């Protein structure tokens, strides 16, 4: 079997991003989601106001953290959905299209996150 050179170089990177995204999502997202999506809206805890949040996000390390929090889980999502569509729903004839759409959306989300975090003040 002859593999395309581009696939050979890209697959391990995508696998690493999937794995890193899985770790980030497993450790960090539940607490964020619980506070932001459930506890704050229901009034179980006081929602951080605009000024405290902007002061927090102003710190470069917090921005870096938020960038990682947003970007790698998107690659995790892309990888899983790609193979779920492949194995689960057996959509095999659209393999390339699905891969481009999945990883493309992850790249797009990463760019948006970078742009927003770079320009926030």
């Amino acid at each position, binding site marked *: 079997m002859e593999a395309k050179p581009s696939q050979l170089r890209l697959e391990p990177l995508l696998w690493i991003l999937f794995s890193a995204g899985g*770790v980030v999502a*497993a450790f960090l997202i*539940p607490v964020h989601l619980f506070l932001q999506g459930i506890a*704050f809206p229901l009034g179980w805890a006081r929602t951080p106001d605009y000024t405290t949040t902007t002061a927090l996000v102003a710190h470069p390390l917090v921005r870096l953290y*938020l960038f990682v929090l947003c970007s790698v889980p998107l690659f995790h*999502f892309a990888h899983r959905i790609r193979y779920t569509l492949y194995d*689960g729903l057996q959509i095999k004839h659209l393999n390339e299209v699905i891969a481009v759409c999945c990883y493309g959306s992850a790249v797009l989300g990463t760019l948006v*996150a970078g742009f927003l975090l770079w320009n926030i003040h």
Partner: protein
Amino acid sequence: MKSPASTPAYTLNHPRWYRKRVSTYWWLQRWEYLRFVLREVSSVFVAFFVVTTLVQLYGLSRGPEAYAGFQNWLKNPFVIALNVVSFFFVVFHSITWFSLSARAMVVRIGGKRVPGALISGSNYAAWLVVSAVIAWFLLRG
């Protein structure tokens, strides 16, 4: 049947592999399969969380009114319900990820393999600590 001598340009037989047709809904047939697919589907909720966070950052960059608008959107009962569902899926991802890492990571100390329960146990402990630190940052404001 013609003999190979009379037909020199014969074609080789290419038998197609026998493959049993698998139903598109194979993952509904057993709980283990369904659990696998639900684990994969949890990534959709991970993506939903990221998109929400990006919208939040956008609101933050637009100013106090836009940010208040985002916070009000979060108070919509449908959004809260969606976030509750998301939360369960994301926790499901965490649990499956930690038990997976116990099998994927082979740690040896003194030539003996560290039992998987210890690896996933330390993962859970780290999860608790990390969550507490993040909660402290978000709750002290």
